[in-house]
């Protein structure tokens, strides 16, 4: 009557972390109650129970916006398996952001959302109209607490609050995960609820209204709920597979208050602009499949596919892969590649034809709702450094990504606009430096 030892789970270095926390609790606690007056806790310094992950990222879109983003995430694992984590992100964005208008043969002048005369801007003929005064600072803080309620079930709750000049958001989430089949299978269910409040600079424009009239209304809100169901399965000793399906539904003011669409005549001349008008409800469904395989102690890969579709007509596919290669005990690299393709929302249109018979109920020229495909190449290098304050080690990393987005616009170009680059590609780079300890 001898049991075969079960295959070990991949990624269960959680045992070691849990064990380190439990040992700290034992030795620290016992030290405080020692019978000998000289006793003191050995390595139970405050830092050791906490782990910190921090990063600073710089993002730059060619000719458009750039952003600096420091992030810090601190988590503490308690002796009984509870984890508390806190995170804070600060984004500072500036630069030029497309305002939704179409490139034209003539110069165009726009007022800025703030309405200040000093912020009026012009676009030269043949250039994509962008608002050069785009500036926003955002701060977000979040917390998450997870606790094992039985040996095989874990519950987690979290919240996040973020704020910027014209937008506030609060999100609450909760999830439960249950292991069975000797911990080879995990089923999880998560729910979240988000509430957003918008106070656009200059007021939210009436949807679909004439740009020149500057009909502004007051503050707006939107809210959403989402649910996710996931299944993670250890397929073999070296292969972990995960599937999840999710759905979310947002309602309220879903427009971008700063974007408008050009109205052009048959010859392509711009006659005016109309603020965009999106439906006040959006439901999205997505399915995701991820596989991680450890080929050896030094090499592992992860590859995933994601499919999303929503009731605005947008469908997208994402394929992503990365490779983790340990060059030595102390260094590793992670090259990665991601391919993304999306179809346009039903009401997406790069421009409105004044000659069209039927007025559009909804319209938006925001290229983020348009048809495009994108390719991202990434590379990360990480190096382990000696620890401090009682820790074994820390990790320093640097990551770079190059993103290129190509619009797949099929709308026939009016004769008068031939020769103009109406749908320029977007190129962006990201460089991120991180320190984890």
């Amino acid at each position, binding site marked *: 009557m001898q049991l075969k*030892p079960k295959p070990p789970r991949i990624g269960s270095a959680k045992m070691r972390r849990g064990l*380190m926390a439990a040992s700290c609790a034992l030795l620290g606690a016992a030290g405080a109650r020692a019978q000998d007056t000289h006793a003191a806790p050995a390595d139970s310094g405050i830092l050791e129970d906490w782990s910190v992950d921090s990063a600073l990222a710089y993002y730059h879109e060619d000719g458009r916006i750039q952003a600096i983003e420091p992030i810090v995430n601190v988590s503490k694992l308690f002796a009984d398996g509870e984890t508390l984590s806190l995170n804070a992100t600060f984004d500072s964005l500036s630069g030029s952001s497309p305002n939704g208008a179409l490139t034209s043969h003539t110069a165009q002048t726009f007022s800025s959302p703030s309405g200040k005369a000093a912020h009026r801007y012009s676009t030269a003929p043949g250039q994509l109209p962008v608002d050069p005064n785009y500036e926003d600072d955002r701060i977000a803080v979040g917390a998450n607490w997870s606790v094992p309620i039985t040996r095989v079930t874990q519950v987690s709750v979290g919240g996040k609050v973020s704020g910027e000049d014209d937008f506030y958001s609060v999100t609450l989430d909760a999830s439960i995960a249950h292991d069975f089949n000797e911990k080879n299978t995990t089923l999880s269910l998560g729910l979240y609820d988000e509430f957003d409040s918008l106070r656009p600079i200059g007021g939210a424009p009436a949807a679909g209204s004439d740009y020149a009239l500057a009909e502004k209304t007051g503050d707006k809100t939107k809210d959403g709920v989402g649910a996710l169901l996931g299944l993670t399965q250890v397929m073999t000793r070296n292969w972990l597979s995960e599937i999840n399906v999710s759905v979310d539904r947002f309602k309220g003011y879903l427009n971008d208050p700063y974007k408008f669409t050009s109205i052009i005549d048959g010859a392509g001349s711009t006659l005016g602009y109309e603020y965009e008008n999106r439906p006040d409800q959006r439901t999205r469904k997505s399915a995701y499949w991820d596989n991680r395989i450890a080929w050896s102690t030094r090499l592992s890969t992860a590859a995933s596919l994601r499919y999303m579709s929503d009731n605005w007509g947008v469908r997208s596919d994402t394929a992503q892969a990365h490779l983790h290669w340990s060059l030595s005990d102390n260094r590793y690299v992670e090259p990665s590649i991601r391919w993304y393709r999306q179809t346009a929302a039903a009401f997406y249109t790069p421009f409105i034809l004044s000659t069209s018979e039927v007025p559009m109920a909804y319209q938006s020229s925001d290229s983020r709702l348009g048809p495009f495909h994108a390719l991202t190449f990434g590379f990360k290098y990480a190096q382990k450094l000696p620890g401090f304050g009682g820790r074994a080690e820390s990790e320093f990393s640097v990551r770079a990504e190059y993103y290129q987005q190509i619009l797949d616009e099929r709308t026939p170009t009016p004769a008068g606009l031939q020769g103009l680059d109406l749908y320029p590609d977007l190129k962006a780079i990201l460089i991120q430096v991180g320190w984890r300890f």
Partner: protein
Amino acid sequence: MRADGPDSTITVESRGEHLLAVRFTAMASPCEVLVPRMSRETALAIGAAAAEEAWRIEKKYSRFRNDSVTAWIHGHRDATIELDEETASLMAFASRCFDLSDGLFDITSGVLRRAWTFDGSDRIPDAAAIDRLLPLVGFDKLQWHPPHLMLPAGMELDFGGIGKEYAVDRAYSLLADIEKIPFLVNFGGDLRANRPPLHGPWQVAIERPDTHCEATLLLDLEHGALATSGDSRRYLLKGGIRYGHILHPGTGWPVPDSPRSVTVAASSCTEAGLLSTVALLHGSGARAFLEEQDVRYWLL
């Protein structure tokens, strides 16, 4: 140079040209504290502090003494008792390790010892004897609501699985607090050092359990802990199969295809000892288990 302790003697002798070793016996193992050359009186005082902590823990948790906390717990089965803070901490630790190891590490598995005698002979118990004991094994059968414990009739608690490593860590923390010198505490092969002496790292030799293999494993240790689990001396041999002494709490039998010895390096001896014991219980999966815990280890 010697001084008499309550149960044993402490001696100081040279170890190479740079070190002194303060030696004593505790927990049925040869123990020592290594320090750089200094006055013998000082070395003796340092070693005595470590020895007294080892003897205190041994006396408190020994299953052979009738004045130990373990004996007291066994004398109050089927009743709810309140444990002292140190014992409650050890129970909390054992409980957490039971969860983290999916039940492989279980301090109630000591009763299985009644069926097994690991003396190198070929007296393997019959399955019925083990089946009668299995219902008495299982940490989840205790009622543990810190600091209150109810131990059901017939069950036993055995702190031996973590006692020696815990004693190393406790002695280490006593010395680390009062001494600013480099030192190494070694209780029968489970050891921990705070930093290397001036002349270079501590040189640790790990015995190979197989008598055919003479060469020992030599490691340079700067700081941290090492613990070794294995069956070098306590085993049974029958039909060419070697049965190691660490029993799987679910089956009552030793795990087949275990490595003969597992040494793990970690920041504390308790952690290293837990990982090496649980690794052994993974049998042929010991290496994979240790790989995914991302620790330094040596399998023999």
